[in-house]
């Protein structure tokens, strides 16, 4: 029987040498005349173990990692094709604690299947949600999504069902589904992993959104920094068209739906939905004032659902297993699961999908295992460049939209960057302002001018020039940006700045006079 070996094609795996590993395995198979095939799967999301090579055995898939091309000969000699022992052997993949502790609903297939095999996709419950949705009236699909409690996973946390209802009820000649795959937040890679590891689930989610709202065209707007995701997604769209999942008659029904993929061009602000719509229309990515809501006047002035990749990729499981099944996970008003991305200076970095409610400390210390450098954790930034820095004192905060808001933070797209005790929080506050200045679209004054004044003010504090007065000024500037900016870029930049200044005052103290005099 043909032996199946899995070598991931996820960009992070490739960045760690997966291509060389796959090539070494191919030549070893040929040299030894073994009947084996290599499947290029997505990543399981355990990046300290990548490239993670798996072999299918009678007992299940056995994992080896992190594997280098130079390890391959030794692995074959040790009998890894039958799951035999080797210093790199991690045992059965599903028993690895990092995976075993997760609740994988959205990422159930990611890293398991060949991302471009519809046969694999169907075998692991793919298209069941769409088949059920086709048999339902649109209003019932929307009701299911509303009841599931799903909130926008891009960061804003707006109830997905309500957005869909607005578009469904809008009257127009054309409506659109726009997938926001412009995942620019540092510490986040969940969208990328889905597009590279299970693209059909995103396609399925978009088709369901189309059927529910009466939209017939979808766009995936992603980043030019994600060439691998673009390639896999494009190929998947072609396969879905061939199979009749996309096209004039979705799975033989009366519904038409098609998808196009579009790439941005390096502008972070295009992750903001109105800026994204302008960019998609071919304009400068300038933020639009709301109202009108994109749900009523979005792409080309037509009613448009703009949803994050993870929101859309969570729809198929909700339709398949039911709203109640999904809603039963989580806490408070944060229902279902959230793919937490643990990144930066962390021992066990990766993607951990779990129900809402784990404490930040559990995530960073127990699941993430502390820092990669082995030094104490000083701060973690939750929610990307616009998220707050949390000190250890706030590690009891549960991972929940409202709980983070109550501590002047946000969960955003659920990325966590870990920093050890060598980090200078004044420098991080400065970077937040600098990043805002670089990426500001320029439409509103608090963001455009405020960010540059912010950099200057932080610099004065750093140089010990009237530090007390400048700290008051910086707080006042943050207040203006928070309440006066048009979108989250200027409006949320105060989160990292103020949290750094509030929780780490020691880094904002005056430096000795000798240096300050320079």
């Amino acid at each position, binding site marked *: 029987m043909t032996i199946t070996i899995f070598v991931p094609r996820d*960009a*992070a795996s490739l*960045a760690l040498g997966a291509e060389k590993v796959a090539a070494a395995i191919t030549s070893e198979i040929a040299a030894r005349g073994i009947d084996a095939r290599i499947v290029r799967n997505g990543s399981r999301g355990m990046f300290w173990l990548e490239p993670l090579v798996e072999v299918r055995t009678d007992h299940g898939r056995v994992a080896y990692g992190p594997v280098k091309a130079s390890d391959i000969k030794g692995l074959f000699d040790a009998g890894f094709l039958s799951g035999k022992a080797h210093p790199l052997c991690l045992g059965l993949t599903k028993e690895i604690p990092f995976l075993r502790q997760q609740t994988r609903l959205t990422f159930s297939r990611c890293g398991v299947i060949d991302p471009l095999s519809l046969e694999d996709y169907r075998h692991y419950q793919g298209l069941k949600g769409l088949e059920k949705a086709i048999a339902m009236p649109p209003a019932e699909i929307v009701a299911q999504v509303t009841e599931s409690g799903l909130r926008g996973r891009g960061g804003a946390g707006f109830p997905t069902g309500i957005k869909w209802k607005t578009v469904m009820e809008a009257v127009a000649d054309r409506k659109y589904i726009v997938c926001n795959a412009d995942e620019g937040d540092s510490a986040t890679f969940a969208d990328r992993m889905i597009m590279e590891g299970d693209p059909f689930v995103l396609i399925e989610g978009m088709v369901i959104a189309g059927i529910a709202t009466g939209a017939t065209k979808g766009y995936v707007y992603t980043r030019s920094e994600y060439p691998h995701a673009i390639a896999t997604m494009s190929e998947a769209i072609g396969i879905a068209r061939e199979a009749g999942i996309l096209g004039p008659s979705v799975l033989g029904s009366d519904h038409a739906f098609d998808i196009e993929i579009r790439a941005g061009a390096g502008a972070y602000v295009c992750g903001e939905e109105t800026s994204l719509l302008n960019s998609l*229309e071919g304009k400068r990515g300038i933020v639009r004032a709301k109202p009108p809501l994109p749900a009523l006047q979005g792409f080309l002035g037509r009613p448009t659902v703009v949803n994050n990749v993870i929101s859309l990729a969570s729809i198929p499981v909700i339709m398949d297993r039911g709203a109640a099944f999904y809603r039963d996970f989580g806490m408070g008003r944060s229902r279902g699961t959230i793919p937490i991305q643990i990144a930066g*200076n962390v021992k066990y970095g990766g993607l951990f999908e779990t129900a809402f409610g784990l404490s930040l400390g559990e995530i960073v210390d127990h699941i993430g295992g502390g820092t990669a450098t082995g030094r104490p954790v000083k701060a973690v930034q939750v929610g990307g*460049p616009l998220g707050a820095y949390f000190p250890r004192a706030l590690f009891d905060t549960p991972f929940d939209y409202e709980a983070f808001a109550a501590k002047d933070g946000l969960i955003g797209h659920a990325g966590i*960057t870990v920093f050890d005790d060598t980090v200078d929080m004044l420098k991080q506050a400065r970077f937040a302002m600098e990043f805002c200045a*670089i990426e500001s679209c320029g439409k509103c004054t608090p963001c455009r001018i405020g960010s540059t004044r912010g950099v200057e003010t932080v610099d004065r504090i750093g140089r010990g020039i009237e530090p007390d007065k400048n700290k008051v000024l910086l707080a006042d500037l943050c207040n203006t940006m928070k309440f006066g900016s048009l979108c989250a870029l200027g409006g949320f930049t105060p989160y990292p700045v103020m949290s750094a200044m509030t929780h780490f005052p020691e880094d904002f103290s005056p430096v000795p006079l000798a240096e300050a005099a320079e």
Partner: protein
Amino acid sequence: MTMRNSADEIAQRSRQIIRGQKHLEGPMLPILHALQAEFGYIPDIVKPVIADELNISRAEVHGVITFYPEFRDHPGGRHILKICRAEACQSMGSDDLADRVRQLLGIDFHQTTPDEAVTLEPVYCLGLCACAPAAMLDGEVYGRVNEHCLSEIVGELGR
């Protein structure tokens, strides 16, 4: 590559490319990506061609091109090296790495080496945040980039 192309040839080729994309809804970004893929940058002389084909003003075309950091208004080096400068990479020492690469290449960000071998660009996140610091060379990605790995990458530039 542009050396061999006269202004007329560039304009003509641009028109072909634009006509291949203009049926799309919101064709501007796909057109600009295609032009940059063809010429390595967006030559000034294609702006009026785009404006003419899409029936918009040259000012608007110029405005769009200059909004996006990805689009270049002059040719880059034979290789484009991007170093991630965002927070997750910072937490793993990307600032030092950036200093080192500037030193190795003898140029700053947004500059090209005198032999035109490589252009150095900053990038704000490659989505490789759990294997930081990260870099990208002509679409090839690298994770956990250290001094050794960096020297290897720079060595591969053929200079």
